[in-house]
């Protein structure tokens, strides 16, 4: 029987589905008995989703930034 410390130490592998089948079964057995680790696992997964979703994509680069970068590159080109 494993304890919470081992479950949490390898939780990243559990979440990524990278544990061997036998080891995963041992983890699942612990989780069926431990409310604290079930809560930790759920909030660990929520953390990953929150981090991703709270960082919105930038749809397009601002046109003035493109202009500024291209102007800088042109100034730095050997022929300039």
């Amino acid at each position, binding site marked *: 029987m494993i304890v*919470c410390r081992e479950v949490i130490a390898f939780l990243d592998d559990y979440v990524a589905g990278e544990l061997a089948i036998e080891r995963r079964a041992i983890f699942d057995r612990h989780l069926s008995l431990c409310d604290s680790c079930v*809560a930790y696992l759920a*909030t660990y997964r929520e953390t990953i989703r*929150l981090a991703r979703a709270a960082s919105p994509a930038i749809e397009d680069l601002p046109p003035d930034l493109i202009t500024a970068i*291209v102007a800088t590159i042109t100034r730095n080109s050997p022929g300039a």
Partner: protein
Amino acid sequence: MNDTTLVAGLRAGDTAAFEDLLRQYGARLLRLARRILMSDEDANDALQDAMVAVFKSVGKFESNSSLLTWLHRIVVNASLMKLRSKKRHEEIDIEDYLPRFQEDGHQVEPSRPWTESAESMLERDELRAQVRAAIDRLPETHRVVLQLRDIEEMSTEETADILGISANAVKIRLHRARQALRALLDEHMRPAT
């Protein structure tokens, strides 16, 4: 435009190829710089520095490598250089935010579920801001790994390649970053006692 054509254009010094590169990848690279630097203005500067570095070193780019991974590496380096030149902001000591265990291996403080799902939390602007602020408090070495792996969705190997560290170091830092971020968010999300 595919990456091979883009790289050929960049090597020829074609400014139109640079504009295509910026339209194709620029927004994603700018977001990465913003997350590392936590400043739109500094991120614009870092992206500009990075693009000059791309222009100067595209001859050394190996065609069998991933163009996006190479661009990420240059943007991360330009952003970190800028970050280190500025006054450091307050970062947590990550050890203080990792779970603690009793001698028998059980958690010292039992974990409890959060009252809301991620979806409903993210509908609220102030919670999105709290999540971003919590990410910003992570130590730079861990924050960048979380950014590349969980937000940019790069693989462990790509992240290791970008940062010049081992895949195992990426895995360790990512797990610790997630645990610390979970603890920081737990202060806002757990049910009141």
